[in-house]
């Protein structure tokens, strides 16, 4: 019996070993299942088999310990076992510490510093401010197929998450592998990000900080405002392209929750009820008195109007009466001079540079850049002629520059014409834009002596776009905090000075032959010295 017991005492260990192998195999399958790489027909059976094999492994060792206690005691008292178990415990403890440290670091990612000079990796203050005020958690789902590079999106979303105080999380979904989820989210393309808060969804078309901020703002401010662009007088086209188009302005307004529409006052004979702002963008033909009356009526009811009026020679006004400019002068004390600004501080004198901003007005208090107004007319304010109206000169030419309102339009047709400040010209500094508010009705008006500064070619030039958007925001009476857009980050312009032929040759020889050659020569010298020493 004892002989039999001795012969079969290793049997539980063998069984335990086989069960251990099975546990490892099944454990691997379980990991593969957890990673969604493979799903067997009966996943529960895998789980059951894994539990059973693990139990048999432990049971086998325990049975062996019962059958052969002396062998176990001897094994445990061995020096190698003692040291081995010490090493095992130490390893587990060390790996445990590493795991915990990395887990905590992963769960609490923190940017310690952004050392780039332009702070390229730091979120804009507007984004940080918005993230601070998130009323509820936002979940971003980025729909990226394996073919779509996701590194920059991952980095941006992680950056936002790091600064959200736990209120922003994200995940990636492969729209090809999960077409139903993508379809339910309304995603039709690759690289889109859907933000969800309190059951509401907003789509960001691409992974860009400004785009994501706009989407978050839309989530936070679901009520859209409506902007109407007046049509029928050759105004700038909101759907076209080029200098006289306002596509960039339209896109920016839309991304800021504005519904952008067109309006024909002559056809409709009224300003729609949902209008918050009506924009008159560079009409070529004069507005009729009826239209001007409708606009005045709209302002009197608390609406906002943005009028962008180019110098007369750039229009087809001719000698026709201009009810709009007349109304602006009589009702608001805003006189648009019949001139165009010559600004000698500009490399192209016909481009007036908006260099002085009203520091106290919401439209211009955050302006960081110049604004450029190609062929603008100057504005004169007659505060004394109007009551209960606050007139603010928003933008002026630089007080230190020599600018004037040139009244001799014939110089525009002569390429080599000499222009100078004549007695009939208005001397600088000249007003380029004005904001006016009726205290009684809260009606708001912004007047620019130029329109193409907001056109597609001018919108992204320095602060032009910001000024236009801020003007619309103010005219729409929107609290600035809810319509923030990313302030353009000042970047240090770097230029590369190409090396001369000689310098280039020196760089080529130095980097390809010089440095490696020196190391090679040092190596050979060391080798020779070593051989000499024997």
């Amino acid at each position, binding site marked *: 019996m004892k002989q039999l017991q001795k012969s079969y005492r290793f049997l539980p260990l063998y069984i335990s070993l086989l069960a251990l192998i099975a546990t490892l195999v099944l454990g691997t399958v379980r990991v593969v299942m957890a*990673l969604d790489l493979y799903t067997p027909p009966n996943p529960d059976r895998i789980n059951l088999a894994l539990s059973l094999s693990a139990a048999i492994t432990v049971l086998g060792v325990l049975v062996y310990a019962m059958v052969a206690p002396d062998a176990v005691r001897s094994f445990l008292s061995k020096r190698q076992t003692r040291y081995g178990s010490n090493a095992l415990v130490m390893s587990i403890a060390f790996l445990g510490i590493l795991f915990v440290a990395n887990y905590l670091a992963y769960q609490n990612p923190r940017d310690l510093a952004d050392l*780039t000079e332009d702070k390229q990796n730091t979120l804009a203050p507007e984004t940080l401010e918005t993230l601070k005020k998130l009323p509820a958690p936002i979940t971003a789902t980025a729909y990226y197929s394996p073919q779509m590079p996701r590194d920059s999106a991952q980095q941006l979303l992680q950056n936002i998450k790091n600064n959200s105080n736990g209120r922003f999380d994200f995940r990636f979904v492969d729209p090809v592998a999960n077409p139903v989820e993508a379809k339910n989210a309304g995603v039709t393309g690759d690289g889109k990000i859907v933000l969800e808060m309190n059951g509401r969804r907003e789509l960001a078309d691409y992974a860009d900080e400004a785009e994501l901020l706009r989407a978050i703002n839309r989530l936070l401010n679901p009520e859209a405002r409506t902007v109407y662009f007046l049509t029928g007088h050759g105004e700038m086209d909101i759907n076209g392209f080029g200098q006289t188009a306002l596509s960039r302005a339209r896109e920016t307004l839309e991304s800021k929750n504005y519904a952008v529409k067109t309006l024909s006052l002559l056809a409709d004979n009224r300003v729609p009820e949902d209008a918050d702002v009506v924009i008159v963008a560079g009409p070529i033909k004069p507005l009729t008195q009826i239209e001007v009356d409708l606009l005045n009526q709209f302002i009197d009811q608390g609406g906002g109007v943005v009028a962008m009026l180019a110098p007369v020679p750039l229009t087809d006004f001719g000698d026709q009466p201009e009810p709009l400019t007349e109304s602006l002068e009589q009702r608001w004390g805003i006189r648009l001079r019949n001139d165009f600004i010559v600004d000698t501080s500009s490399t192209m004198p016909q481009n007036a540079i908006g260099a002085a901003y009203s520091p106290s007005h919401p439209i211009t208090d955050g302006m960081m850049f110049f604004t450029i107004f190609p062929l603008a007319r100057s504005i004169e304010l007659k505060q004394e002629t109007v009551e209960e109206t606050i007139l603010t000169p928003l933008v002026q030419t630089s007080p230190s520059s020599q600018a004037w309102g040139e009244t001799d339009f014939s110089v525009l047709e002569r390429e080599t014409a000499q222009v100078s400040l004549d007695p009939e010209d208005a001397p600088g500094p000249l007003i380029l834009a004005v904001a006016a508010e009726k205290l009684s009705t809260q009606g708001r008006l912004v007047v620019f002596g130029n329109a193409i500064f907001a056109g597609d070619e001018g919108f992204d030039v320095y602060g032009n776009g910001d000024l236009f958007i801020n003007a619309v925001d103010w005219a729409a009476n929107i609290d600035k905090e809810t319509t923030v857009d990313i302030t353009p980050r000042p970047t240090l312009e770097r230029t*590369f000075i190409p090396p001369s032929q000689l310098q280039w040759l020196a760089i080529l020889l130095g980097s390809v032959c010089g440095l490696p050659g020196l190391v090679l020569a040092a190596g050979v010298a060391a080798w020779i010295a070593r051989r000499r020493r024997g």
Partner: protein
Amino acid sequence: MRNIWTIAKREYNHFFISPIAYLVAFAILLVLGIIFALVIYSSSQNVFFGSVPDIRPITGSFAFLLVLSTPALTMRLLADENRMGTMELLLTAPVRDIELIVGKWLGSFLFMLTIIAITLVYPIVLNALVRPGIDQGLMITAYLGLILVAASFLSIGVGISALFSNQVAAFFATLAVLITLWWLVGFPANYVQTGADIFRYLDLQTHFYDSLSVGKINLTDLVYFFSLIALGLFVGTLSIDIRRWR
């Protein structure tokens, strides 16, 4: 501490009489020199498009070269002691296992720092060609990242070298681990839903290229790199410890 410094100095000096170390330094500087010349040439050709070079092509390429060159530097560190039988002598010396491993690692790290220091000539030249100079902050973090990658790789190399008595085996084992950390481990992140974050976290490239290489210092990346360094040194120390009582 003195023991560590003594061993480190000995190892550091040993690199300067080792032909492999010179070959590694030569290969790294040759490849980086060619890349640098190409960067300057390409920027000169595209100067009218506003192309301004920065240091990232150099540091990025250097980090990649470390995958291939580190195993060559670390393979002999302990494997050679095992092969030549000098390990027994070291074990009987009044030096703790951890001091031996850290000393070996520090010696190789200082040698790599020397090569890295030589490459500082590239940003100096670039700085002279760019007005008003290259982004110094970006350069600092990129080089910090490079140093951390080198320290991690060398630590892994030292740890693996302690496991083998054959240099070639140590070389290929280190290379396999570094390739896994550099390429393979992050690969599934694009293909799996669950656990993608774990793979992405383990991917060493992410911690370098997406963070330090772009001017950002992140706590997670620092913890990751220091963990790798600690893990490599721990494996080496444990290996020596096991050798004592086995």
